[in-house]
């Protein structure tokens, strides 16, 4: 069981991002204890993906700090060594498994490249680890040797998850990572992510608009609206008893048995 008093693996404080006149992210703060899962919930334009991109290092914050595993990452790295260290702290799985893999690399080669870069292990040890990782995410031997074009969407997303885990990150960012999958495949991948968390003590940041997926995978959640946090707390509590009017509206918009869509006045 993760210790809630342990030092957080990820700490975001006063984060702000401006694109010209637009404030995409405004004064966002949160902490993520080790082995826990945090959801960042919001609709398009809420700033949730911009936050993910800043944590990974694809965008530079206008203001505020991001600290992962005790290291500041709000500024660009100065050396290749630091860049690799950051890769071992945070990895990301994107939404679209069709554009996030190199079409010329098999799953095995994709994973092996990460192992070589981050751990520098000899070939034998890498081969064993590739086998472990492909098994962990449920790819069979044929799929592990296949190019992305002969894999289904769900299989590609497993490759992307295995590639992210190969760096043995402390934090895995899941940016709408199950949103593009069919319902029956989505359930398989959500179960897989729960298993991986139990087995590896990795922490998740789940970026999602899907409240049912959020409930299934996370302990805590923050709700973003136009770049600002409007509600935060235990995921179950936010969904069972939303306090902010926006969270209530979001909750009421989810189709469920007997649901009738209502037009807003």
């Amino acid at each position, binding site marked *: 069981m993760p210790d809630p008093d342990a030092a957080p693996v990820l700490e975001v404080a006063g984060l702000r991002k401006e694109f010209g006149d637009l404030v995409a992210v405004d004064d966002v703060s949160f902490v993520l204890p080790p082995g826990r899962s945090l959801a960042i919930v919001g*609709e*398009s334009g809420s700033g949730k993906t911009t936050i993910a991109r800043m944590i990974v290092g694809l965008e530079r914050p206008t203001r505020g700090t991001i600290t992962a595993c005790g290291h500041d990452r709000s500024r660009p790295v100065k050396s290749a060594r630091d860049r690799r260290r950051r890769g071992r702290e945070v990895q990301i799985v994107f939404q679209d498994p069709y554009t996030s893999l190199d079409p010329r690399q098999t799953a095995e080669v994709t994973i092996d490249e990460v192992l070589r870069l981050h751990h520098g292990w000899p070939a034998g040890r890498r081969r064993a680890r590739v086998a472990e990782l492909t098994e962990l995410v449920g790819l069979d031997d044929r799929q592990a040797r296949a190019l992305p074009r002969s894999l*289904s*969407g*769900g*299989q590609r997303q497993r490759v992307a998850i295995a590639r992210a885990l190969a760096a043995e990150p402390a934090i895995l960012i899941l940016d709408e990572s199950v949103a593009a999958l*069919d*319902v*029956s*495949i*989505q*359930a*398989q991948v*959500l*179960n897989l992510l*729960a298993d991986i968390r139990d087995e590896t003590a990795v922490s998740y940041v789940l970026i999602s*608009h899907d*409240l*049912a*997926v959020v*409930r*299934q995978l996370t302990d805590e959640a923050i709700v973003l609206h136009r770049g600002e946090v409007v509600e935060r707390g235990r995921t*179950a509590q936010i*969904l*069972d008893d939303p306090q902010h009017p926006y969270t209530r*509206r*979001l*909750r*009421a*918009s*989810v*189709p*469920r*048995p*007997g*649901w*009738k*869509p*209502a*037009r*807003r006045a």
Partner: protein
Amino acid sequence: MNGPLLEVDGLTVLLEVEGTPRTVLRDISFTMRPGEAVGLVGESGSGKSMTARAIGRLLPRGAEVHGSIRFSGSDIGSLSGAALRRYRGQVAMIFQDPRAHINPVRRIGDFMTEALRTNLGVPADQARRRAADMLAQVGIEDGTRRLRQYPHQMSGGILQRIMIAAALLTEPRLLLADEPTTALDVTTQAEVMAILDGLRQDFGLTVLFITHDLELAAAICDRTVVMYAGQIAEVRASSLLHDDPLHPYTAALAAARPDITQTAHRLRAIPGRPLSAFEAPTAECAFAPRCPHARDICREALPVLAELDGGLSRCVRAHELRGQLQEVPRA
């Protein structure tokens, strides 16, 4: 006329993929009464979009079509020229991604009034007035301003409402809606669904609503057709589908979805992946390889779509499994 508006009978479609014809739809039959809303639900490759395309006469070139589709009693397979254009005026289609189906360099007004001006000979100023009125019907108040704008100047939600308004301008009798809210935010989806439901009632519109979401279909549809591997698995009153399904696939689909009101220890995932029609077995139940209820009898022949408790189910064990499908055993 009290007969059905649409009758799909034994529709089988083959498409050529890399030189070989592949079955994408297998023996699809259903009817729609005027004013009825029917949901067409399934995962990727189930054939739900292809069914709508066949009805809209929008199948790719070279498609091999068997069976018949009758609209208002006449077969649409043989239509061409002016008759086909007339048919298309009566059957409108809206798609998942409005940006992919609108010309980005033309103004909204130009796009919306084109069919009225060119097909129906409506004068331009009158067509613009009708377009602005229709925008008000879908909740866009400043219609005349929107008509002067370009697609990039509006959000996806507004653009999808414009697509709906444009589709309704020619006063179609049948609306084919192919995942029209999938690309939208949930709060916007709720609004667009409410608009569709309202229009359906105001205009007496017949709607075929295609989605992967059982509950979304239930929100505005009277009946739901569940498809798997290019076949119909189940037809059921939408309100009964979630709590009292007739086919194991429907039950498994509902059980696999995470629940917003509780965290499951494990989700009841369906093993394997959804099959396309050409990959699925044809001499046995197509769902049998993934079905927790499959027995030897399921592998002996392709089950027929049989009547059961006011619905239809393509499962040989459907009768025997009545009331037990909610408790999915471990495969």
